[in-house]
């Protein structure tokens, strides 16, 4: 142990933390400051007259502004990957993108909470502090580069969410949802931690790139030839599966989906929007980070082929990104001996394991979610199953990205870009769906699909917007939901191989299955006769404006996906390098 002087510590703090890490951490710092201000503003005289909504919205907008790159989005094209806080977090374009995504969502979400009245004057500060605390956790989760931050991010995102699920204290169903959520959530987090302890113990580090390096040193194909080696690999597989339990819970992937419908039905619709959009997006990025972190080392990344001109993969309205089919065919011939097509290198077994596991879970989640959504009578429960199905669809993009990352970085980036496009458009679709459910609950005191009958006659704007959102959730053109599904299918096609082809077929079939139950709700609203008992249903001006603002992008990006797709392409331009 070398002697440490106070000077060394201060130097490292100034060099690494203040100069290098904190400038990239400003949005999170703004969130922390907002939480503290929300709590302490009432200590001061007159502070109780400042509405907590203003503090929360100001804080989250400040954080969002700080998250935007100072030199414009074009600077992402050349932004290098950096490790912050001596390796705890990673800052790359993906972090920057997902942070803007999460903070934009939270700004919209705070406005929604204010409009629906779930956060009233008395409890507002607690509610907003919980929302911002969970968002902080999600930001950390999606930029984790170290097992400590992975677990801490998951906990920081989950624990406030447990309270949010039970935010309506007096309702039996609400407290039941919170209890189920906390019990299953804490249990799976414990299992995940045990898996992390096995993985870090065998690999001797908790820093993801170091873990990947020592995985590569282990030389798994060689280990599998001896009995002792096989047992070591088995401990690693057990650890990986247990880590997967925690991630699958956050993603509500089958077989850890059981909490999702119950919690969504019991919690209020606003909280459901938070759980289904922000929490899922952060968990998907975390899944990608784990897959890329453990399955790739910088040493084995394929060098981008200079003979192959960089393919511009922007989706234009009239041009559906035909992949250069010849290149795909050549690649398929090149590694046709490998069923999963994950490329070579010492970590290819890790990638193969990850890809097989994630794609199987993705298929099962997607199919199960779509099938179970059929018989639902409660709209929130139906949307919960729809969330499970969409999470499965998005996991397919993650599987394709990791499968491609070992072979062709450019194609892998396309897959991640498809994922980012998906979660961005999913924000608009699900936020407006749950916002409509919440506003209708305030008007009709019901969340049953049957009670929405004939809504188009009393509240045409709501019914039309809801129908548009549902059609977009199916993935039908010309609405926005079509493009990300198309690009995920395209990424799966590029990944090639029997497994990915199977996933491709399953994904395409699922889109057809989903058609029926979404359209059933649309039919109830637009065609069925109106019940006699119901009075006039009309949203106020502000709620209607909110629904309009959030669901109009579903129409706009359906016709003009180009700008958004360019943006997600830019956000992945430095990934895997």
């Amino acid at each position: 142990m070398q002697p440490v002087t106070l000077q060394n510590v201060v130097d490292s703090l100034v060099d690494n933390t203040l100069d290098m890490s904190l400038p990239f951490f400003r949005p999170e710092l703004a969130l922390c400051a907002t939480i503290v201000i929300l709590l302490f503003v009432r200590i001061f005289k007159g502070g109780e007259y400042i509405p907590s909504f203003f503090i929360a919205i100001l804080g989250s907008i400040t954080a969002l502004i700080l998250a935007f790159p100072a030199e414009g989005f074009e600077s992402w094209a050349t932004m290098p990957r950096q490790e912050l806080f001596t390796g705890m977090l990673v800052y790359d374009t993906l972090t920057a993108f997902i942070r803007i995504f999460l903070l934009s969502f939270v700004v919209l979400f705070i406005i929604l909470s204010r409009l629906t009245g779930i956060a009233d004057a008395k409890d507002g500060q607690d509610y907003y502090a919980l929302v911002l605390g969970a968002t902080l956790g999600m930001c950390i989760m999606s930029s984790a580069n170290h097992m400590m931050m992975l677990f801490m991010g998951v906990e920081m995102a989950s624990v406030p969410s447990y309270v949010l699920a039970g935010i309506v204290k007096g309702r039996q169903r609400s407290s039941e949802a919170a209890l189920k959520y906390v019990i299953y959530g804490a249990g799976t987090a414990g299992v995940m931690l045990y898996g992390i302890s096995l993985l870090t113990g065998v690999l001797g580090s908790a820093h993801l790139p170091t873990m990947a390096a020592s995985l590569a040193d282990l030389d798994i194909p060689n280990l599998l030839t001896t009995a002792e080696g096989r047992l070591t690999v088995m401990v690693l597989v057990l650890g990986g599966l247990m880590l997967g339990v925690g991630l699958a819970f956050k993603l509500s992937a089958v077989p850890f989906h059981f909490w999702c419908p119950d919690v969504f039905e019991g919690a209020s619709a606003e909280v459901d929007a938070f759980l289904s959009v922000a929490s899922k997006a952060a968990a998907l990025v975390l899944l990608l980070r784990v897959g890329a972190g453990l399955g790739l080392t910088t040493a084995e990344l394929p060098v981008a082929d200079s003979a192959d001109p960089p393919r511009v993969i922007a989706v234009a309205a009239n041009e559906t990104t035909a992949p250069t089919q010849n290149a795909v065919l050549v690649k398929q011939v090149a590694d046709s001996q490998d069923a999963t097509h994950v490329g070579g290198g010492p970590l290819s077994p890790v990638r193969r394991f990850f890809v097989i596991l994630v794609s199987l879970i993705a298929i099962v989640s997607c199919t199960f979610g779509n099938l179970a959504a059929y018989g639902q009578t409660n709209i929130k429960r139906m949307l919960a199953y729809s969330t499970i199905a969409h999470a499965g669809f998005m996991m397919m993009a993650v599987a394709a990205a990791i499968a491609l990352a070992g072979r062709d970085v450019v194609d892998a980036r396309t897959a991640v870009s498809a994922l980012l496009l998906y979660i961005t458009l999913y924000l608009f679709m699900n936020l407006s769906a749950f916002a409509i459910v919440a506003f209708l609950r305030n008007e009709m005191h019901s969340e049953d699909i049957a009670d929405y009958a004939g809504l188009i006659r009393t509240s045409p704007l709501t019914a039309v917007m809801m129908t548009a959102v549902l059609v977009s959730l199916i993935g039908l053109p010309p609405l926005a939901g079509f493009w990300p599904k198309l690009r995920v299918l395209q990424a799966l096609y590029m990944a090639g191989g029997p497994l990915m082809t199977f996933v491709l077929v399953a994904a395409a079939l699922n889109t057809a299955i989903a058609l029926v139950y979404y359209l059933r709700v649309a039919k109830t609203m637009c065609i069925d006769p109106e019940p006699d008992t119901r009075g006039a249903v009309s949203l106020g001006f502000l709620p209607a404006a909110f629904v309009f603002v959030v669901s109009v992008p579903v129409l706009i990006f359906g016709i003009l996906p180009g700008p958004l797709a360019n943006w997600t392409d830019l956000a992945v331009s430095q990934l895997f390098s």
Partner: protein
Amino acid sequence: MDSIYWPTFFFYLFSGLACAFAVAVLLSSNIVRMAFYLVLSLGATAGLMFLAGAEFVGAMQLLIYVGGTLVLLIFGVMLTSQERFVVMKTWAGDWVKAFLAGGALLFILAYAAFSIPEWRGIERTEADAIVAQPTVTPIAMGLLGARTDDPSRAGYLLPFEIVSVHLLVVLIGAAYLARAKRSRSSIEKI
């Protein structure tokens, strides 16, 4: 036969206590007794941590876990346990399935652990030669972001600072739920 190596003796003592009381937690059907067994099991785990040279973590385990978290749990037991809820029955079929699954997992983990040569333990001569090093100073330095034990590893400044925000948020949430409820018309009607 060599003379007894006392750390090993204490390891078996503490691990026997920790495992026995963990099994007792599992088998007991009385929530109050479960809480008591859990305290003893986690206390014995703290002893195992001392034996592994992690005296600071062991002390924190006793102070925060046994002294704080478990007292909180016991508080919860006292607030909620009425006669009809204290005893919990589990069906025999559940037990059989649970023990089969648990036994298989335990066998796999233990067998794999003992089959890895580096994990079987060091020689006694090596163990006697190890100079005990204090761990509190390097841990404190690690929490400040400077790793004195191994500069190539990550410093824990960020989790150390951010966990305070987390604790604040969690306390706000717990206090919110524990406050007396008010009725909120439109949302509660459903």
